[in-house]
């Protein structure tokens, strides 16, 4: 539990130190969350196979990687939010914005919720940690306090509350059917009955909400567009990861996965198709990335089709793709955040000629987009290949075909941005700078997104953890 404690202590420290510092010295505050996250990152590796609170909180095989994923995401987001917090961003400069380090405090609280979610082994803990990983996001979404952002926040709260109510109802039915809170015990003692199916449907719809599966994705476009770009990035990576963890927890520990194969395949096909088709017509880059993220969720859940036995490649592939997707999506978002911070423009057209004015940044963006589309030799390709292989192993060839064709559709709209950056002529020749820390992070993420696909060590390690 050390990791979560470190994250929480960091959050509180940040909040209190913030009170006693003068305006000029506040720059220094950035080091607190970064240091805390680094510590938390290290601590994860010392804690494998621990159980505490009578088994209600435990850290087993694959959990390690999920926690690493969330911490990495938060780390990148903290760095990316630098100019937003300091009020240098064009996105918010039309308002008088105070230095807002509470932003990071709330982000860290949210992170701790996700970390708890990974380790929860009990209905109640699961529910509470899920709330902790959702509620702070409502605040962050409305952070800009303009019309769009407030609308987004409100929409998110209302629909989020609905989803969480459905989840709670589902959970209470599980409890009523079995008389226990322990996830594994529920899984062992539950019998298939109409009530069970009803509860499952409720739970799946709540998962669908968190993971933006079609048809539970309705909230996403407006929220993604209205939220500050940093938060959009966080939503599309970490929050999606949290949804995946929730799904994993419930399907791995409670349900007999094989009876849900068809439902999952159907959800997956619907999600990726709708996400991809609607993304084609988007003009706003944030909305565009939202639909791209929706379709990615469709690919992600293909990983559940392989079942959970120790020899199956399903879960390792899933976790690998989560990393691959997270990294590539963050690459794209780092560029988008930087772009919006500098110019305040959000349309795809505004990227016109970026390759001439900022060749390296445009190259990173292109690598990121190709990674999302799944072009070799990037990690996105290998990750998708593994997921397709998982689906094929259970005989879902039609899903593989749908997914492969969807990849082509997705390439079409990713190429739209590439075209703006590389083919269209330059309109504005003003160049902007990118601060050193963002540049370092962007560079390392790009390199990681290439290397993950070429060097098998990472995947083999995940596989090894899963088997043991």
């Amino acid at each position: 539990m050390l990791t979560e404690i470190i994250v929480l202590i960091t959050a509180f420290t940040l909040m209190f130190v913030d009170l006693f510092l003068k305006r000029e010295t506040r720059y220094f505050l950035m080091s607190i969350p970064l240091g805390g996250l680094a510590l938390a990152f290290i601590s994860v590796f010392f804690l494998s196979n621990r159980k505490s609170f009578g088994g209600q909180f435990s850290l087993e095989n694959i959990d390690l990687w999920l926690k690493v994923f969330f911490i990495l995401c938060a780390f990148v987001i903290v760095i990316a939010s630098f100019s937003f917090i300091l009020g240098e961003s064009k996105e918010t400069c039309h308002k008088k914005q105070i230095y807002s380090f509470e932003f990071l405090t709330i982000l860290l609280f949210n992170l701790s919720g996700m970390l708890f979610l990974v380790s929860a082994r009990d209905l109640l803990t699961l529910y509470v940690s899920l709330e902790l990983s959702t509620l702070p996001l409502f605040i962050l979404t409305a952070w800009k306090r303009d019309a769009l952002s407030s609308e987004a926040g409100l929409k998110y709260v209302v629909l989020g509350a609905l989803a969480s109510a459905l989840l709670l109802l589902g959970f209470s039915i599980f409890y009523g059917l079995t008389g226990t809170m322990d996830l594994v015990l529920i899984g062992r003692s539950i019998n298939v009955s109409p009530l069970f199916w009803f509860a499952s449907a409720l739970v799946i719809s709540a998962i669908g909400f968190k993971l933006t599966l079609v048809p539970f994705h309705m909230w996403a476009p407006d929220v993604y567009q209205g939220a500050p770009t940093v938060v959009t990035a966080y939503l599309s990576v970490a929050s999606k990861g949290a949804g995946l963890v929730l799904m994993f927890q419930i399907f791995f520990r409670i349900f007999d996965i094989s009876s849900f194969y068809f439902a999952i395949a159907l959800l997956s096909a619907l999600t990726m198709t709708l996400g991809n088709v609607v993304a084609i017509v988007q003009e706003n880059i944030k909305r565009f990335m939202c639909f791209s993220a929706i379709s990615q969720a469709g690919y992600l859940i293909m990983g559940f089709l392989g079942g959970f036995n120790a020899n199956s490649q399903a879960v390792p592939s899933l976790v690998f793709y989560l990393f691959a997707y997270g990294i590539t999506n963050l690459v794209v978002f780092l560029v988008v955040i930087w772009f919006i911070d500098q110019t305040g423009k959000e349309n795809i057209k505004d990227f016109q000629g970026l390759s001439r004015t900022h060749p390296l940044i445009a190259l990173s963006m292109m690598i990121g987009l190709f990674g999302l589309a799944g072009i070799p030799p990037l990690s996105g390709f290998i990750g998708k290949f593994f997921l397709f292989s998982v689906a094929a192993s259970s005989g879902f060839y039609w899903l593989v075909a749908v997914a492969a064709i969807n990849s082509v559709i997705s390439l079409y709209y990713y190429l739209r941005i590439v075209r703006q950056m590389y083919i269209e002529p330059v309109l504005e020749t003003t160049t902007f700078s990118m601060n050193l820390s963002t540049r370092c992070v962007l560079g390392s993420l790009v390199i990681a997104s290439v290397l993950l696909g070429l060097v098998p060590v990472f995947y083999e390690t995940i596989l090894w953890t899963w088997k043991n």
Partner: protein
Amino acid sequence: MQVSCLVFLPLLTAFLVIMTPRRFSHLIRWISVFGTGLHLVLTIMTSFLFWAEAKGDGELLRTSLVFKLHLVEKISWFDSLGIQYFVGIDGISLAMVVLTSIIIFTGVLASWNVKERAKEFFALLLILVTGVFGVFVSFDLFLFFMFYELAVLPMYLLIGIWGTGPKEYAAMKLTLMLLIGSAFILVGFFALYYGSGFYTFDLIKLATASFPVDFQRWVFPMIFVGFGVIGALYPLHTWSPDGHSSAPTAVSMLHAGVLMKLGGYGALRIAVFLLPEGAKYWGLFFMGLTTINILYGSFGAIWQKDLKYFTAYSSVSHCGFVLFGISALNFMGMKGAVIQMFSHGIMTGLFFGLIGMVYGRTHTRIISEMGGLARVMPWLATCFYIGGLASLGLPGLSGFIAESHVFLGGFFGNAWQSGVLMKIFTLIATLSIVVTAVYVLRGLGRVFQGPIENVEFSNLGDATLSEKLSTGILVAVLIVVGLYPSILIDVIEPAIRPVLNRLGGKI
């Protein structure tokens, strides 16, 4: 090591090009020429190595039915999924690698005049060609697929940025259609992976699996059509005229010359080789489609006003021969198909190279606006005529060898398909020879013969040294293969026998 060098040398060159500062544009060109030239030398050395190894097997190789691979390199990669880095060379690969090496070298020479963003252009071109080499030497399906996609994608930027005409439309159409084809291929590969029960992507191992007949019957068309898209199979060829005519010279050369061969290569190497029962079931159907291909392409070429469209349609027709030969499912037909891949690659490379050079001088590609150009550019005209004669199958040039093999293959028939239908298809396909003669002679006549119609054209120059070198190499290859075809056939034959063996046909 040898084979890996062949694959990664272009990538290394691309890296060097990227590292060179933009202002040394001459250096960038020289690096590219040097890199591809070195590659050509290496390829020739590899051919000798291949011969040396193959000679060792002596007579065995001539009659052997077992799959014999040379210069093999095998390193396990994603071990848990049975993915290996597995490259090697057999006769067909060798022919294709030599072809690619020649085309990229001449292509780089032919694009000496690319000034705009030269650095990116050469880098992308070299990355693309890495993918192509990779496809031709990989014997692991995963590796194969990875290189295949790598070969398709840079095309988008190459056409989109440096192309002419409706380039963005053409680039997008080409990329999407090819990738949809690859989506089908991917599904097919997974089916092979799980259907074999071996859980491996190793092509040689998969070839020992016996897939159920029903399974083969649905997987075969998936893979064949997937490759058919890039091989310009009839209803799916529409990307090719637009793509080829919008692309810059070197890219058209590479694309029509080499990339379209990936289709024939994959169809033969993977679809027919691994799924013989599927091939027997569908062979006739695809033969019919390719007959349409051959005729449609050649009739289409007659009406074209733009030199590049003209050549692109003739490409569709000629690539039809490749798939036609393969779907004949006999020794002669497949041999012809591979020779046609090689010969057409060189021929189209030459055509597109020449068109680029002519366009660079006249700034028009419309056939009717030209005329009498032979007076001012005799070298280019001569090369053009030799290429044209090869394309209509004049004996003594490589086109004749290829087409005669393919037609003979069609006539010979095989044990599983209706011989009468095959003969009818072949008869219809032979009509294209006449049509080809019509459009080639008419087209070239209008461009090069007669008086010079446009006064401005009368002081245009002939080919420069680099252009002479580039076209000269291609013409020489056309003639050498035409006069001494065994140089190619001896290499190809042993590689086709295992395919036939798996089909169960006589040799």
